[in-house]
């Protein structure tokens, strides 16, 4: 029996593999599978690309009429799926090749990571609000557990904090879902979207705000993102790289997917979203100036970039959307690179505080060099990919004749430069005495070098992949087409 | 209390002063004559004011005495000066500097000793810390006597010097070059540890050319 190429595999495969983990543990196949599953998903996504180009792929798994799980795969979500596959494959490769700590290579980590992948894929794919809640919780629970994985005080603290704030977010989101259902009597995105306009105004606002708070907490927007640095600092950097690389991206995508589908005219909340994005960006970059811990600094930087993406996506013109999506991808790659490097430094030196990293350039030249590369990419300096995406976003704003976001983005980039270059300077501090740490193998660097290569490649030849983002932007904007596809798939 | 334990100056070496004067008049060629004439027309003075004599030097340049009409003008540094006027008693400290200044002047150079204290100790004849007789340490060309001599006397001294220059006589600086060992021995005797370093005078030992 030929397995049909359907979107359901993106959720089902990791779940299946995760739940049969005892078998794999017995067969000692955990690590190969942890690498293999995302890679399979990535290949699957690439294989589906030609299909999706023409029209969104909508699939409904009927459990019992009228209940069913709607999965909707359009160009934008395909992009996210592929990104999640790629990112988690790279992290898996890092864990495998890098001979990392035992708790990251055990069964629990295996299960939780696959769950996280499944949850994120589900978030991106689902066309149903309640399923969204379910996937949100799946991703959430696995994330809580992942951050507490090391089971020492900081990790447990991070896990607990994450759990508390995540549950609150889930409650808010659930509240919104409940209200939507009570107002419209349906949960399918398509149906809700077509009747969302008929809900009385104040109720719309209430729902919108509840959603915004719920998703805002998860997607790390400004007044709701205070938990982020703690969690990233407490978790293992590799895990944090997953959070920053895929989890946040999935939630961001969900937020904007909802915005563009539910609202007939997204412009009503454009100012809100752009304001939130700008505030996130500026506040995070400013606070990052005084950080002394690499993981925490990267967390703030991640927040700043999320703000930038929000600003770009919130504006909602095609160019900013495409640029925003590209930047999303770039940021994932860069933050993977930086967090994985942080993991290496942590293993080598047992600390990633600023003072302890002084003079690292002599002890770990490759790591330091790659850190510089990553920092340059975050800052959007050519010829690295961050430059292209940032330029794309800025060009979008310029085309739309809106200049204030350009000023804010450049200002934020300047502040960002202030702290990134402080770190770089410290890495190459000539006078520092640095003790030799634990030696690392050469293969450890393979995924990181691959990431760096990707950054350079995307920076030099972005035209190779530009169609992906343009199509993704178009499909996000094409509300009618999406609605039609979703409604048409209704049983 | 001053103890006359050794002879000084003329008492020891009575022939010294006469020895400096060239007995036979040297015949000057026309160029030498011109040069000598030019030299006597322009005297740049380094006035070394060590004592009360210095006060008599100032009026020399004023409107009343107007030494400039003889081509006499003050020079700022020893390098540019032709005439060193030592105007007053010399203590050990000042002697050292006078010698140094003299040796830094460019030849031809002349020394005028102004006042009794400079020439023979004068009223400080029994002081324990002054140098009594400057011509034991530096070759003096003109002695202007008095305590203190008036500016007119000094001008007379200058004029006498000019005449000697114009005649092309051997001057003090020749003597200093020729009898450098004697001068240095005298200087060393009083200065002892305070002698200036060798490089300030060792070229004299090589005949004045280094």
């Amino acid at each position: 029996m030929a397995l049909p190429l359907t979107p359901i595999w993106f959720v089902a495969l990791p779940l299946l593999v995760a739940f049969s983990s005892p078998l794999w543990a017995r067969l000692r196949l955990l690590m190969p599978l942890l690498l293999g599953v995302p890679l399979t998903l990535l290949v699957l996504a690439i294989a589906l690309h030609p299909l999706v180009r023409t029209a969104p792929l909508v699939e409904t798994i009927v459990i019992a009429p009228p209940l069913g799980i709607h999965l909707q795969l359009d160009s934008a979500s395909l992009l996210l799926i592929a990104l999640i596959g790629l990112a988690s494959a790279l992290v898996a490769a890092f864990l495998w090749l890098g001979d990392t700590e035992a708790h990251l290579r055990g069964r629990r980590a295996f299960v939780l990571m696959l769950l996280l992948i499944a949850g994120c894929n589900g978030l991106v794919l689902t066309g149903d609000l309640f399923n969204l809640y379910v996937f949100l919780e799946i991703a959430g629970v696995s994330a809580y557990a992942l951050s507490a994985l090391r089971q020492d005080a900081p990790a447990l603290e991070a896990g607990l904090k994450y759990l508390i704030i995540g549950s609150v977010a889930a409650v808010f989101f659930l509240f919104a879902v409940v209200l939507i259902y009570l107002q419209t009597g349906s949960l399918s995105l398509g149906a809700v979207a077509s009747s969302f306009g008929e809900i009385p105004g104040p109720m719309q606002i209430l729902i919108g705000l509840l959603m915004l708070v719920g998703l805002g907490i998860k997607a790390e927007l400004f007044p709701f993102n205070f938990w982020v640095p703690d969690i990233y600092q407490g978790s293992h950097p590799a895990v944090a790289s997953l959070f920053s690389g895929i989890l946040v991206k999935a939630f961001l995508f969900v937020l904007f997917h909802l915005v563009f589908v539910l609202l007939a005219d997204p412009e009503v909340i454009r100012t809100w979203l752009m304001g939130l994005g700008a505030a996130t960006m500026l506040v995070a970059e400013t606070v990052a100036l005084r950080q002394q811990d690499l993981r925490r600094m990267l967390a703030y930087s991640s927040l700043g970039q999320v703000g930038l993406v929000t600003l770009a996506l919130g504006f909602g013109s095609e160019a900013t959307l495409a640029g925003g999506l590209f930047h999303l991808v770039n940021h994932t790659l860069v933050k993977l690179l930086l967090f994985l490097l942080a993991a290496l430094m942590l293993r080598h030196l047992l600390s990633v505080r600023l003072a302890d990293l002084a003079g690292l350039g002599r002890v770990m030249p490759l790591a330091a060099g790659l850190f510089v590369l990553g920092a340059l990419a975050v800052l959007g300096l050519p010829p690295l990919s961050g430059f292209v995406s940032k330029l794309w976003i800025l060009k979008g704003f310029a085309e739309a004749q809106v200049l204030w976001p350009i000023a804010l983005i450049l200002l934020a980039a300047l502040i960002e430069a202030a702290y990134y270059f402080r770190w770089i300077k410290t890495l190459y501090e000539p006078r520092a005495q640095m003790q030799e740490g634990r030696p690392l193998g050469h293969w450890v660097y393979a995924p990181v070098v691959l990431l760096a290569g990707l950054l350079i490649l995307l920076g030099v030849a972005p035209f190779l992949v530009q169609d992906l983002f343009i199509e993704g932007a178009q499909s996000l904007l094409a509300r009618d087409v999406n609605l039609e596809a979703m409604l048409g798939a209704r049983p | 209390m001053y103890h006359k334990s050794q002879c000084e100056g003329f008492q020891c070496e009575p022939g010294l002063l006469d020895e400096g004067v060239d007995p036979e008049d040297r015949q000057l060629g026309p160029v030498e004559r011109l040069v000598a004439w030019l030299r006597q027309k322009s005297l740049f003075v380094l006035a070394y004011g060590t004592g009360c004599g210095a006060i008599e030097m100032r009026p020399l340049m004023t409107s009343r005495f107007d030494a400039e009409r003889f081509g006499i003008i003050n020079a700022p540094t020893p390098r540019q000066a032709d005439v060193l006027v030592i105007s007053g008693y010399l203590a050990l400290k000042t002697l050292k500097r006078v010698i140094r200044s003299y040796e830094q002047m460019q030849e031809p150079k002349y020394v005028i000793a102004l006042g009794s204290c400079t020439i023979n100790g004068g009223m400080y004849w029994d002081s324990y810390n002054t140098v009594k007789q400057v011509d034991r340490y530096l070759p003096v060309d003109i002695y202007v006597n008095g305590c203190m001599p008036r500016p007119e006397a000094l001008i007379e001294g200058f004029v006498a010097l000019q005449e000697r220059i114009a005649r092309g006589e051997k001057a003090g600086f020749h003597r200093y070059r020729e009898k450098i060992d004697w001068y240095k021995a005298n200087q060393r005797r009083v200065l002892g540890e305070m002698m200036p370093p060798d490089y300030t005078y060792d070229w004299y030992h090589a005949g004045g050319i280094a």
Partner: protein
Amino acid sequence: MIKLLFFTVSLTPAATLLGWGEGLAWPLFEGVRLTLDLTPLSAFFLLLLAMAAPLVALPMLRGTADSPAFVLFGLLLLGMQLLLLAGDFISLFIGWEIMTWSSYLLLLRSARTDLETAQSYILFNLLSAFLLLAAILVFYRFTGHFEIRTAAGLTDWQEILLALLFGLAFLTKVGTLPLHLWVPRSYDQAPDAFSAFLSALVSKMGVYGLVLLPTLFPDALAGLLGRLLDGPAAGYLLAWIGVVTSIVATFKAISQEDMKRLLAYSSIAQLGYITTAIGVGSSLALGGALYQALVHTLVKLLLFISIAGIVLRTGQRRFNDLGRLMERMPISFFGVLIGIIGLAGMPPLPGFAAKYLIFVSLLDARWLLLLAAMVLASTAAFVYCYKLIYAPFLGHANSASAKTATEAPWQYLVPQLVLMGLLVGLGLFPGLGVRLLIDPVLIALQMDPLGSPSWGELVTPYGGYDGVVLMVVFGTAFVLVTGLFFLLRGRMRRAGSPYDLSYAGEVPTAETPLHYGAGMGRELRRIPLVGWILRHSTQGFYAALVRQTRTAAELLSGFYSGNPQAWVLLAVLVFALALQASIGGI
């Protein structure tokens, strides 16, 4: 082997210049296409680059191979070539940024760079870069394309806005007055050979941009207030900015106690002249600006490399610790000598030709007050030029290492000799420089060429001079005088010791403070204007800015308290407020 490779890499700008065919293009992404093209203007600056790169590379070859530095230098060259060849703004910006960060990383290769220097370097340069990007985007918003060509159909105000943004970006790079904080410290602390490149070439990219501006917006300078006297009114402002920069930087340079810092300030001052000339904007002025750029490149390379040699041999860089190196490092001495003659703009070296053109252009525009101010800067420059040659080479050796130093190694001497030759040659033939280098650029900028009847002559509508005659007269006079004097020298005696000085009857010793190095120019403070300038600095402003930012960061980080209950409380409060605001407000 690596060294050989590196040296080959340093020749690439020359290869690019010689082997450039037609334009290249590279599609970046949707709607953005990079085009590369060689215009006469970029060829002029590329020539400077081609000349300087191997000369700077040579001293870098000494000692153990520093491969990261080599790679970064290669990247820097790549970025600068890209910048110069750019046919559109995006390529320009890419080149600009590559130049910025690779030079920053090169700066970090020095053991002396401290955090503040590094931060100020990168932040000011990124500020410049981001201003440039903002300008490019505004340009795009107004015109709809990225190409570097005369922008048509803009209103006056749009042009002025653009010129302001671009101008600020480029002025930051050349270190114009309130934005110069990064220059002295980074030139001072950079690796010694690389300082030469920073000062001579990297800053010239700002000049390139500034020269580009009038071609982009021919009316921007005259647009605001029309013409003032015989020059553009907005340019008058720019010219004053340049001159004030020169004056302040010159006085600051005089008060420096460190060779490289002095050179850094002098670099700011020299680039101020160029800014002024660009403000005038006539063909004479632009010719002068280009000539000054050329001369300044040569001179600063020469001076920085010579001084790098001194630092290499003595390990000292403060004026107080050096002295009397003339006998120990004669070639370096002549290097610095030629360098300061060029720097001071004295005839017969080409610095005079550049200054002459700029002066005449100011005269032509009837901006006499600017002329006077510029004369002030360029005369005051004599003081620091003299300090630069006196303190290391003349006077008395003031440290043990200065007493035992030997001549710099050949890697340092070869570039010096080449540059000396170039400077003297150019001084001899100022017309040749005009004919070969300046006029093609002016023609390409659609301006009247300066022209020159012969190699030796520099000609302007206001009269000119002949470099060959000048050099020959001076040389003949010198030979004659020296020969005659030598014949009639009489009895000459060499002083027996460096301490054989007429020193008020004293005998100075090694302990006597005889070297007047760092103190030179200190008494200038007693002049009211100079004292005022030297007492003030922009440092306090930037320090306050940093302090404010830190405070803001501290305040904002209060949000990130680490207490989950506070997070929830804030989220709920925001929710309630937003709800109140949007529903209650309706």
